[in-house]
């Protein structure tokens, strides 16, 4: 048992690492001030084109769609190596990770030919338009309507929590095309042109101060029937395949989020509530141990999953615990650490300590992470139902026509 690459994996890693050393040198250090949106998009496009040329995009996709036809381990290895740099690759993660696989799985050959190559090379950016204000955890409860008009559909409604909507050229959108049938059955998925008339994008400011998401309003937006993904009324199943791609993206601790090491470092520098260095106090040590167990436990759990992939097997259900542990651990650890730091842990801005600012960011961000991509409650339901086989909650609306349910 070891944490080593297989010879093939090691070879791929060495190649990728060498290429990155040569080509990502300018991203070795984080930018001193964050890039503005324009520069971010420009750099993202340039970086994506470079990766495409070198064969580091669509690593697991079929060659027919411009992919490399390699296994998930190669994709993960490239990702690990790239993450040693600060290259701008986030702009494409949803488009290439979720949207385009849906497009080439459920779209016609013509549609795939039109959209996949340009997405892969990075010329066109994609976003995913699923959630709505009244349909968060209950995604199938969406209300955005699409009404057929000849060989076109007319879309009206509002989407929310859309990443990079303002920078996107196209999106995949779930709509309700038949409100007279039960809610899972009346949905249809389309490709929508984000520059089309009637599409309006507004940023959402988060509690933490950032604006990583958007609201998108559709007013009489017209989409050709050729841009439908899957059958009319089959949108729920199409959306599930999209989301399956999301779930496969193993979600560990956000890259720069403080972990148990941060708490240890802080505890070496401050006094304990009981007096003496905090690092020597029993309660602080117990908390460090718990943070290690959660942080490192998730890392090791991910290695279990990677080992399965490396062996050509499907990862076990254990990786489903990742986000629910990570988000709550971040919140608990940050709260405890800020407590330890006294008044300084509360001061922000120019007067604040940069290390403590990371913990403050983590405390604010964790509140969002506990919700985004499935709340703690939904994730526990999923573990209980899909892993342990417990029955689902009662759903009084399940078989009722959508427009007759509460």
């Amino acid at each position, binding site marked *: 048992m070891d944490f080593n690459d297989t010879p093939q994996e090691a070879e791929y890693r060495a190649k990728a690492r060498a290429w990155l050393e040569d080509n990502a040198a300018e991203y070795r250090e984080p930018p001193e001030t964050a890039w503005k949106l324009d520069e971010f998009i420009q750099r993202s496009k340039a970086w994506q084109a470079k990766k495409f040329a070198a064969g580091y995009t669509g690593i697991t996709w079929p060659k027919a769609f411009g992919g490399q036809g390699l296994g998930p381990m190669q994709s993960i290895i490239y990702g690990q190596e790239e993450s040693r740099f600060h290259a701008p690759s986030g702009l494409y993660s949803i488009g290439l990770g979720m949207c385009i696989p849906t497009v080439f799985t459920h779209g016609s050959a013509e549609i795939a030919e039109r959209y996949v190559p340009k997405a892969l090379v990075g010329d066109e950016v994609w976003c995913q338009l699923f*959630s709505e204000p009244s349909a968060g955890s*209950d995604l199938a*409860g969406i209300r955005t309507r699409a009404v057929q008009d000849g060989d076109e559909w007319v879309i009206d409604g509002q989407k929310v929590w859309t990443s990079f909507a303002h920078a996107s050229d196209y999106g995949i959108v779930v709509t309700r095309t038949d409100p007279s049938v039960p809610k899972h059955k009346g949905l249809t998925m389309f490709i929508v042109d984000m520059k089309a008339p009637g599409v309006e994008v507004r940023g959402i400011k988060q509690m933490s101060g950032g604006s990583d998401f958007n609201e998108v309003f559709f007013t009489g937006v017209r989409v050709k029937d050729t841009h439908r993904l899957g059958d009319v009324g089959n949108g729920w199943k199409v959306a599930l395949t999209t989301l399956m791609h999301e779930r496969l993206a193993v979600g560990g601790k956000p890259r720069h989020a403080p972990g148990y090491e941060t708490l240890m470092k802080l505890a070496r520098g401050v006094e304990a509530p009981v007096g003496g260095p905090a690092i020597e106090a029993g309660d602080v040590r117990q908390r460090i141990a718990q943070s290690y167990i959660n942080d490192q436990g998730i890392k090791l759990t991910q290695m279990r999953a990677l080992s399965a992939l490396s062996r050509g097997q499907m990862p076990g259900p254990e990786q489903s615990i990742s986000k629910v542990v990570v988000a709550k651990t971040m*919140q608990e650890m940050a709260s405890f650490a800020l407590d*330890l730091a006294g008044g300084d842990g509360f001061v922000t801005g120019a*007067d604040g300590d940069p290390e403590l600012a990371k913990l403050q960011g983590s405390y604010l961000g964790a509140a969002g992470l506990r919700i985004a991509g499935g709340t703690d409650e939904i994730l526990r339901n999923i573990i209980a139902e899909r892993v342990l086989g417990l029955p689902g*909650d009662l*759903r*009084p609306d399940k078989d009722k026509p959508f427009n007759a349910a509460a």
Partner: protein
Amino acid sequence: MNFDFSDDAKALGEQAKKLFADKAGTAPARKAMASGAPDFDAGLWAEIANLGWTAARVPEAHGGLGMSAEESCQLAEAAGAALAVVPLVSTLLATEALLIAGTEAQQAKYFPGIADGSLIAVPAWNEPGAVTPATVATTASGHTLTGSKAPVPDLPGAHLAIVAAAGPDGPSLWIVDLNDALVEPVETLDLVRRHGRLTLANTPAEPLGDPAAYQAWLDRAAVILAYEAIGTASAAMDMTVEYAKTRIAFGQTIGRYQGVKHKCADMFIKIELARAHALHGVAMIGSDGAELRQAAAAARVASLDALSFTAEETVQLHGGIGFTWESDCQFYYRRARALTASLAARGWWADRLVRALELRNRAAA
């Protein structure tokens, strides 16, 4: 058995809730969050002074109403629930210090202004680099102080500070006229309540009459702040319960799911435990009871636990919308950090509680 607030105190609490329901709450808090907004709501402050709330705890001899700590706690709870943008709780805490440790002359000098609202007084114990109220580096030399105090709640806009400085037998309390000192705003996680840094450089100051009063003041401050935290936590719980009654997911209101309703029940449980200890604290202040130290520490710990749990799960149970800037959830989430910073975190108070229990055991042995 008479373990409850007096009818008078309850009536004052009801009056405060009513006024704050009209004049405070999350909408004014959001206005206060805007940059360039005034430090506090001067109109509301005038109304408060007019209603005699700042005078409530001031002795009648000095222009006040001579009421008990029960009234201060009722006001603190109402202010906490409404996130009221006024320096009321800070002034109540400073009042308590003057009351237990001020000389007759000091009381005569400052209480009339506090009573009529013209003098805003705040306590200032926190220092950069200090993690508990036990660590005070500010030094006294003659009748001057030198040191730095931050973050100090409600400092911008205040006129007087009750400052902790290192003394031969631990920290002691001094009065500083803020006209004589440098006050600068300090940004904090709480975007509604203003905080400041007080820089003392041989700044004129006068010691309170009883230099040992710092510890007794901490106890009383813990009880009053426990009520502020209970008020804030209860308001967050109420908002969450209301949301859970109306928000629908999977064909039913989310309040029907045990995942949601059990968390709401836990909020209630934690808040009621905090209420029990806080009430014990008020009773001990009222009777100069020997159990004040332990009651105050327990009230502090239990109220912070209730507030942080409630604030965190308030965001959580609101789902995505709860994490937006537009949602009111952030006020509670951020205020939980403010109230923690306002008088040291739970760990120090839990240790203080056990020390009090040990002392009592030794005394009983």
